[in-house]
């Protein structure tokens, strides 16, 4: 798939809100986050795995998510990420920003969103 500069920028800009939103209801591990973004966007937004983990670590450094090793019987230990209280606040703010942005886009450029 040829990647235009616009697509690249959009992906970079939306990565944060996507990851935070996926962790809103439950904690997930890295592979699951990448797969869900890919699946739920029907492949439109697919994170390169190379940028997924640096992104997760940056969010963790900023205290928005919290990664923990979890061991379950009969399974390898896995690193699960969960949303922190600060992450929840940032997610709410970013949702507003995107909402306004989409509304403005649809008014100006006649781009509809569901």
């Amino acid at each position, binding site marked *: 798939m040829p990647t235009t500069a616009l697509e690249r920028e959009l992906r970079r800009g939306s990565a944060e809100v996507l990851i935070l939103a996926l962790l809103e209801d439950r904690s997930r591990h890295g592979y699951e986050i990448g797969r869900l973004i890919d699946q739920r966007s029907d492949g439109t937004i697919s994170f*390169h795995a190379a*940028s997924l983990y640096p992104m997760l670590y940056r969010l963790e450094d900023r205290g928005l998510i919290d990664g923990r090793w979890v061991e379950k019987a009969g399974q390898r230990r896995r690193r699960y990420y969960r949303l922190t209280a600060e992450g929840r606040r940032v997610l709410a703010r970013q949702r507003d920003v995107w909402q306004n942005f989409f509304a403005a886009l649809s008014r100006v450029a006649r781009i509809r969103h569901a």
Partner: protein
Amino acid sequence: MPDWKRAIRERLDAAGQIVDDDIVDELSQHADAAYEAARAEGRPAEEAAQDVDALVVGWCSHAHALRRRPPRPAAVESPSSDETFWRRTVLHDAGYGFRLLKRQPGHTAVAILTMALGIGATTTLFGVADGVLLKPLPWPEPDRLVRVTETRLIGAFALFALAIAAVGLFGVLSYTMAQRTREIGVRTALGATPRDVVILVLRQAVTMTAGGLTIGLATAFGLVTYLSSLLHGVTAHDLVTFVAVPIGLTVVAALACIVPAKRAAQVDPVTALRAG
């Protein structure tokens, strides 16, 4: 299934990148999961391995970004703990709280007197209320004998005094904390955790409350002794009043401390240092 952990390690080493073991572990799990998913879709093993290998190459070329910031170590080591629990915590806390208060004698005096006033008044009024209203009189059918109309009034006064004690303690602690913002900022910058700061605040609060309780109870004892000569049923040796009221007030004091303590714990070191 190929050993992805070893493959990742080898590629990182070849690229001269040093990456945390934890991170290699996490990436190899991702590789395992991706490989399994590809196999589950019915792709041949070789193809699946190639895909995952491309993934690994991608990670290794971005290895510089695969870093978690190490947790910041405390700049000041906490003292070694070969002392006993009692000496280390309780006595030390009392001593430190006392030294803090000694630095601002006027302020401390006002604070302790406010509390003493509240505690003294509360204890006295509860003592009177207990003696006059709650205990039955030593006659049969005492309700036909006397009618007390001030029931609510005395109770209201007692609650009012309790409120004064609580508000006084709250105000004094908030003010003290506002003055110590800079100091708390320095402590946080040197590695004090929010828990340390809360303990610091509680320490001071406990010392003040102890002072207020001592003076307040002594005053109340004197007052109740005087009143017992005027009112029937009021005695200065009323255990309920002199035990229950201080306990209740200590609880109120603890509640009054929580807000300033939490606020102090959230002081941002940068803001605090600039403001000072």
